[in-house]
């Protein structure tokens, strides 16, 4: 991620100031810019985490997390997302090496695992709403649906993005521009798994600690 290919000293052996070393490669600028976007996205999540932490106990006579969460389901979701993050990495390696069959194969596996995650999550939300524990029931449930729902929306947009990337690879081929976009996608996908670590630790496992 940097301009290792730029000279750092001039012909006389004097160090060239950073400001005069010329432009960075487009690849490192794009990945750094996308990295900044991801960090700002994580700051959005931090405010939702803060709201959840503050409102956690405000159940308004309704259920607490430990009474409605199903750890088995959460474990399935976690496994899907982690494996999907791993296969996303394999997909990127295949893309760089121009191994198209492997690339499409890992792309499909990554997409299916991500879709399975969303499936489990929608089932869970549906079950809560049917039981009467929708987001309007208590401050705790509002914070829960906001935090987990925002993460779910991110994963859903990731799934759409992945379909768009598949179409771009199919029509434009694996050119440097498409490869850079795939790299940004993989960063996005790993970042969502990173946020999920916070969600399953604080929201789900944390709930069982409080009422253990």
């Amino acid at each position, binding site marked *: *991620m*940097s301009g*290792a*290919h730029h000279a750092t000293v001039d012909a006389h052996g004097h160090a060239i100031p950073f400001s005069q070393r010329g*432009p960075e*490669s*487009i*690849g*490192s600028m*794009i*990945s*750094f810019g996308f*990295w*900044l976007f991801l*960090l700002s996205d*994580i*700051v959005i999540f*931090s*405010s939702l*985490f*803060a*709201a959840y*932490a*503050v409102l956690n106990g405000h159940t308004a006579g309704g259920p607490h997390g430990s009474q409605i969460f199903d*750890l088995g389901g959460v*474990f399935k979701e*976690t*496994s899907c997302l*982690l*494996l999907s*993050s*791993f296969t996303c*990495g*394999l997909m*990127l*390696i295949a893309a*760089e090496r121009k191994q198209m069959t492997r690339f499409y194969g890992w792309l499909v596996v990554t997409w299916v695992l991500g879709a399975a995650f969303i499936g489990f999550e929608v089932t869970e939300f549906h079950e809560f709403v049917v039981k009467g524990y929708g987001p309007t029931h208590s401050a705790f449930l509002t914070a829960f649906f906001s935090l987990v729902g925002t993460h779910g929306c991110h994963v859903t947009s990731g799934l759409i993005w992945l379909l768009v990337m598949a179409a771009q690879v199919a029509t434009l081929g694996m*050119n*440097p521009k498409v*490869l*850079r976009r795939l*790299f940004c996608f993989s*960063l996005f996908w*790993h*970042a969502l*798994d*990173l946020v999920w*670590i*916070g969600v*399953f*630790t*604080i929201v789900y*496992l*944390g709930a*069982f*600690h409080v009422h*253990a």
Partner: protein
Amino acid sequence: MSTHDSHAPAGNDIHDASTTYGSYIWGLGLAIILTLASFASVVFHWVWGPSEPILLGVLAIAQMGVHLVFFMHVHADDEGENTVLALGFGVFVVALVVFGSLIIMHNLSSIMPTMDQLMQMQR
């Protein structure tokens, strides 16, 4: 754009050559161990109750580190300097928002009368 492209060889301007299967397999292995440990410590009550959040916190931070290093390839070398600086600032803002909100709301609720007390005052 094309002038910039000509600077860098198309294949490796984004990724360093160290990106191999090994990094992802190590990452997956460590992440699986840490995830299983988190769930197991809650299900089987491995540790004394009050210390459980600390164990969960340590396991979560460790797994985030594993993801950053093995999946996202963030390294604190010359090449990753700006990435790590930005990450440090991000962690700072996140900690400020989360712990700041918790401390402020805790203080607020400890000095504010409860809803029952407020109702009493109104009478």
